[in-house]
């Protein structure tokens, strides 16, 4: 029986989302390709420290070109939807503000939570598609027992992207398809090759889309210069965990928790950034063991598998993208915040990053480390 429900596919120009479009076409769905244009990669070219021309990954002209070629190959309608203004306001601006206040933000989660899914689902509905498919490695399904849509880790654990998807609402999960959830990356490439997509060997992107080289500091300088804003003077003291001043630093945004290089002090044993005190412009340094901590507070929590947290719950918590979830207990502390207590101390818990709670494969929820 032919499938008649139109599906919008979020196409980035990469192998994963291209393969999703190809697979849904093969299954007989009417497919419409959409690309969000979020950032003009040439915008900061030539500004403070930026090269005259920059080669971005996501949103670059090349990626839109690739996505368009895939759509042509598949014979599906394809459109680029510009959301540059909203991206700057909802993602870039908060990213810059977080960085300047000494935290280490992850813009991809911010983008997924506040822009990408929201906007793509709106656009999908506007063009008559109720469902949106993406190339994320994750699984979602309606769980009868819980009476909720749940988000689960994918079959290919090495590609797990659920850490970036904890902010999805029930409505968003109910209208989203993750066709790669059961697949492994090599199979996806094989599928792309079989579908005749020339980009089946295109390398994966690892970077933050609007900071192609990954140099945050350079981006910050160039962006603020373009905006005609000064980098606020956050120079201050380097102090030890006992409060002893051992040096000066040029600005707190140059540091991130767990950082070892570039501290500008020489001591016998290795020193790490333990904490950044934005209000006092202090960077606290100490030995590796000072980086270990057993608790954290997460704010702006979104629950996925449960409606609310009424009593303490044993979960596994993941505190950064490349972190193996560690056993912990979460406890409601009111105002969309929870306290996370780990069984074993964790290294370099970093404010600004997301913490995501798992019950095995199931994403319970997540929030932002404060």
């Amino acid at each position, binding site marked *: 029986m032919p499938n008649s429900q139109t599906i919008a596919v979020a196409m980035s120009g990469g192998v994963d989302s291209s393969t999703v479009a190809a697979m849904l076409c093969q299954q007989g769905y009417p497919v419409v390709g959409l690309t969000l*244009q979020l950032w003009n990669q040439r915008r900061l070219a030539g500004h403070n420290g930026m090269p005259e021309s920059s080669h971005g990954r996501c949103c670059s002209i090349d990626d839109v070109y690739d996505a368009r070629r895939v759509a042509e190959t598949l014979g599906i*309608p394809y459109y680029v*939807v*510009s*959301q540059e203004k909203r991206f700057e306001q909802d993602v870039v601006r908060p990213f810059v503000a977080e960085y300047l206040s000494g935290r280490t933000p992850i813009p991809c989660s911010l983008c997924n939570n506040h822009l990408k899914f929201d906007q793509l689902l*709106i656009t999908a*509905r*506007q*063009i*008559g598609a109720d469902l949106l498919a993406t190339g994320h490695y994750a699984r979602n399904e309606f769980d009868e027992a819980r009476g909720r849509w749940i988000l689960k880790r994918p079959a290919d654990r090495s590609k797990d992207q659920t850490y970036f998807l904890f902010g999805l609402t029930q409505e968003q999960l109910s209208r989203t398809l993750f066709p790669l959830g059961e697949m492994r990356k090599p199979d996806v490439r094989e599928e792309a090759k079989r579908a005749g997509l020339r980009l089946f060997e295109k390398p994966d992107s690892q970077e933050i889309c609007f900071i192609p080289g990954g140099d945050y500091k350079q981006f910050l300088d160039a962006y603020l210069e373009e905006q005609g804003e000064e980098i606020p003077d956050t120079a201050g003291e380097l102090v030890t965990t006992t409060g002893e001043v051992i040096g000066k630093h040029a600005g707190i945004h140059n540091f991130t928790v767990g950082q070892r290089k570039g501290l500008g002090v020489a001591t016998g044993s290795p020193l790490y950034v333990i904490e950044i005190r934005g209000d006092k412009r202090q960077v606290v340094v100490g030995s590796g063991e000072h980086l270990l901590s057993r608790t954290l507070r997460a704010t702006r929590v979104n629950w996925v598998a449960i409606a609310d947290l009424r009593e303490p719950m044993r979960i596994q918590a993941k505190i950064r993208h490349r972190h193996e979830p560690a056993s912990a207990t979460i406890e409601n502390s009111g105002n969309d915040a929870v306290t996370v207590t780990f069984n074993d101390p964790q290294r370099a818990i970093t404010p600004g990053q997301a913490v995501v709670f798992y019950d095995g494969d199931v994403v319970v929820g997540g929030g932002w480390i404060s």
Partner: protein
Amino acid sequence: MHRVYFDNNATTPLLPEVFEAMRPYFLEKFGNASSIHQQGQHARSAVEQAREHVAELLNCRPAEIVFTSGGTEGDNLALFGLAKPGDHIITSAIEHHAVLNSCHRLGEMGCTVTYLPVDGRGLVDPDDVKRALRPETKLISIMFANNETGVLQAVNEIGKIAAEADIYFHTDAVQAAGKVPIDVKEIACDLLTISAHKFHGPQGTGALFVRKGTLLQPLAYGGRHERSRRAGTENLASIVGLGKAAEIARAGFTDGSVAQLAALRDRLETAVLESIEQVAVNGDGAARTPNTANISFDYIEGEAMVIALDLKGLSVSTGAACSSGAIEPSHVLTAMGLSADRARGSIRFSLGKQNTAEDVEFALDLIPQVVNRLREISPVYKKAAVSPQPSALS
């Protein structure tokens, strides 16, 4: 799927008779118009015949026609060909980017540029042109017909002002050619740009009218083609196509086809205004090209509407084709005083010779459906619908 094309201001389909006229010049009649031998002579004769047709369309001498690669090159040749550092240029805020960005560049190169505003109908006030004149004013460049709204400027009056002040006058007539009669003597312009593919000729070719005695600095250096005003081997087949399209366009003013176009556009506009609430025609109240209807739909995102209509078989656009995908709302509509929201909710329907009454009815069936669906899922529309006093967005 049945498809109707209402984006003729972006480009028009090539007329079959134009294609037939071009065909031999791709194959057996392949000569270089500069060559001495027979093939060269045939090519030269074809180019000159085309030049005559274009000259007839504009009411000028054939020698005053310079073939170009299209509207953008024509505008660039006119502006960069005349203006020098220190010169003052008068233009308007609603020009096509081919003029606007050329003026920005000339500004960087040491010219001063005055960008005149337009009123709510999209019209430049000729008195503003007069007031903007300075001793060092070299050139006035004001478009004939706007690409987004079709609004026609008072080029005759502006031409008179320029002539009295002894200043060069260029007009971008890319959207006027084939739609309204053009007479360069009446306009008293020194330079006028047209582009073949806007009136059913081939893409990638156009012409610049250069009044005799107007000395232009060329953009590219090479051979002495086009009387040393535009170097490069003539684009033979396309020039032949341009000539044929010009011949057909000229006939359109007397054979009823332009009148028919106006009737179709009027039917579309009237029926949309009658069947859908909270819509407005942009440029209403000004004289417009007979093929263009630019309509604002409150509570609609133009971009979404273009996609939704495309998926149902109707091709339209949000404004200039080059500004699609850009974030900024149309500079033309905002210059006319539209709010950013209303400008973003504006759709350009532009008809062509090939369109029929059935095409218009197809569109009229589709547009209300799409508008209603988009409004239903718009949170802003719902809010406005339940409020006791619905207010327009602007």
